[in-house]
């Protein structure tokens, strides 16, 4: 199996060389043989000894494209298609969408306090589009690009979930 570790340039490959019985396996990881002994395994958890060190892994997501797991408290995402681009780090209170996308999505759950634009209005990247309230804080959601507001998908007082589309900007 081949993976790419998200947010790094690390490509990994590995295979099971043999099942040695008694829950013990020999693996080859990045060309090197390693001994693995399974302690417990369920549909979303593996406890095992790799060589002499204990690890516990919990699977949070296992989709066609990627696997997200927590190992010893550290979250890892393996992209199953190493040729795919890395997903960039989220870096604003608004969307992680790139300029080419029309949808401005909410990255937080909250209540809409005000809508600061109208359909058809011109907006510049960074202009405040609306204000959300969550956990006693008011958070300004800013446009991710220059453009024209095509449609508005929420209204004051409404609740929005994470990843709900707020406006479309073209």
């Amino acid at each position: 199996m081949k993976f790419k570790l998200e947010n790094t340039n690390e490509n990994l490959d590995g295979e099971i060389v043999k099942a040695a019985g008694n829950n013990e396996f020999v693996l080859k990881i990045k060309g090197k043989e390693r001994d693995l002994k399974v302690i417990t395994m369920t549909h979303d958890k593996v406890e095992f000894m790799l060589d002499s060190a204990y690890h516990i892994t919990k699977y949070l997501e296992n989709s066609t494209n990627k696997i997200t797991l927590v190992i010893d408290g550290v979250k890892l995402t393996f992209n199953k298609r190493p040729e795919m681009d890395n997903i960039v780090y989220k870096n604003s209170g608004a969307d992680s969408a790139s300029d080419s996308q029309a949808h401005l999505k909410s990255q937080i759950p909250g209540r809409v306090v005000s809508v600061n634009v109208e359909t058809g209005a011109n907006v510049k990247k960074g202009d405040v589009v609306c204000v959300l309230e969550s956990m006693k804080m008011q958070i300004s959601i800013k446009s991710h690009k220059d453009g024209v507001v095509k449609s508005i998908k929420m209204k004051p007082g409404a609740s929005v979930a994470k990843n709900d589309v707020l406006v479309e900007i073209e």
Partner: protein
Amino acid sequence: MIEKILIANRGEIAIRVIKTCQALGIKSVAVYSDEDVNSKHVKMATEAYHIGSAPPAQSYLNMEKIVETAVSSGADAIHPGYGFLSENADFADLCEKKNLNFIGPSGKSMRLCGDKMECKAAMIKAKVPTVPGSPGIVEEVEKALDIAHNIGYPVLLKSVFGGGGRGIRLVHNEQELRQAFELASGESKAAFGKSALFVEKFLPKIRHIEFQLARDKHGNAVHIFERECSIQRRHQKLIEMSPSPVVDQKIRDEIGALAVNAAIAVDYLNAGTAEFLRLDDGTFYFIEINARLQVEHPVTELVSGLDLVKLQIDIANGKEIPFKQKDLKVNGCSIECRINAEDTFLDFAPSTGKIWDTNIPSGPGVRVDTYLYPGCTVSPYYDSLMGKLITWGQNFEEARQRMSLALSDFYIEGVETAIPLYKTILNSKEFITGDLSTDFLDRFKILDRLQNDLKDEALQKSEAGLAATLIHSEFLKNKIKTRKEHGIRWKTQVDRH
């Protein structure tokens, strides 16, 4: 003597107060909103009463309902915790009127502390140095612009009702001040029903250092050392510690005495906190009195050995503070990290939802005050503080090592937290050498370092993660096969819990 306390709060602080009640054999009464039926404070109290729907205004800020519940349940006292009604003078007055012992200062003193302008005047009279800034409350944006123009940008726009850094905004120019004024005004109205803002000179590279206070009905007043709270984000504290790396016994005596004078100046009763800013040249400016128990009170408890909630109850009972200033000695060092449900990489935006799993650290010198348990919910209606991780050590280095270790042991599945950020801070040379300031995160580009640390950590675990995934894939293949043979859909296997 207080025999039954209603706790007009929720979350970790309600639990904290209940714990002391239990230890002292005092009955506890919890109150809860629709959102909190399953909350831990409800489960721990002797009795619990539903007081309304999820929005704070309809439950935890509903004074009449809370007082009514206290009276009908037979409680003889009310502990307000922090936030919510804790610094509401009308609530303190209402309690007094209903013969409920309010565990905190009098309404009058609270009003004086809460009115930052009157408070400032009282401090100047008592010769407690204060920050240069606007002479009073600023009601219109144009007035704010004038003042800012006079004292010079950048300035801080603050809410009288703020507290804990909430509602403080740094603005660099007229346009920012206009925007901030509107937002701050709106937030304040939503949370407190009214708005009252003022402007203060922005001081660069400052430390936030505060002194724990206690004063009883007999006029005895002490400070219980300082807390260094300089590691902040958006003017809200993230990490607190006691003692401060820049406060020695001489400074402690000197500023501590100012703090005690500040308490006397506003006729403060019970436990409270005098907040100061410290400039790089060693100047301290008083900024405000927090008229309540602070979020970060545990660091003071760990270096003083005191139970501050017990002390509050004793003072409310009319007892004398059972020690003198000279009896108090700083024992070791304590650090607290606030465990908020926030996404560090989304500018600390709220992150809410169900906590699928959690591991709470423990061990020598480790204390955790939290409402978390596997299966509980972090509600968007209330603030983001899920808990506090506090460590103690014989010295700073031992407390720091224990914190670093405990952070690695703290696992919360379901929401984002700043735990990885704290690990990066705790292991930074600037934190270790005590080079702290309220702009610490920006000054040392800590978020960039965090990204690198996360990358390194992921790389370190990547081979073991791959090994797990190889074995697990085999397991799943066999499972699916077995399941299919039995005609049960695979999906049921991956459902959570």
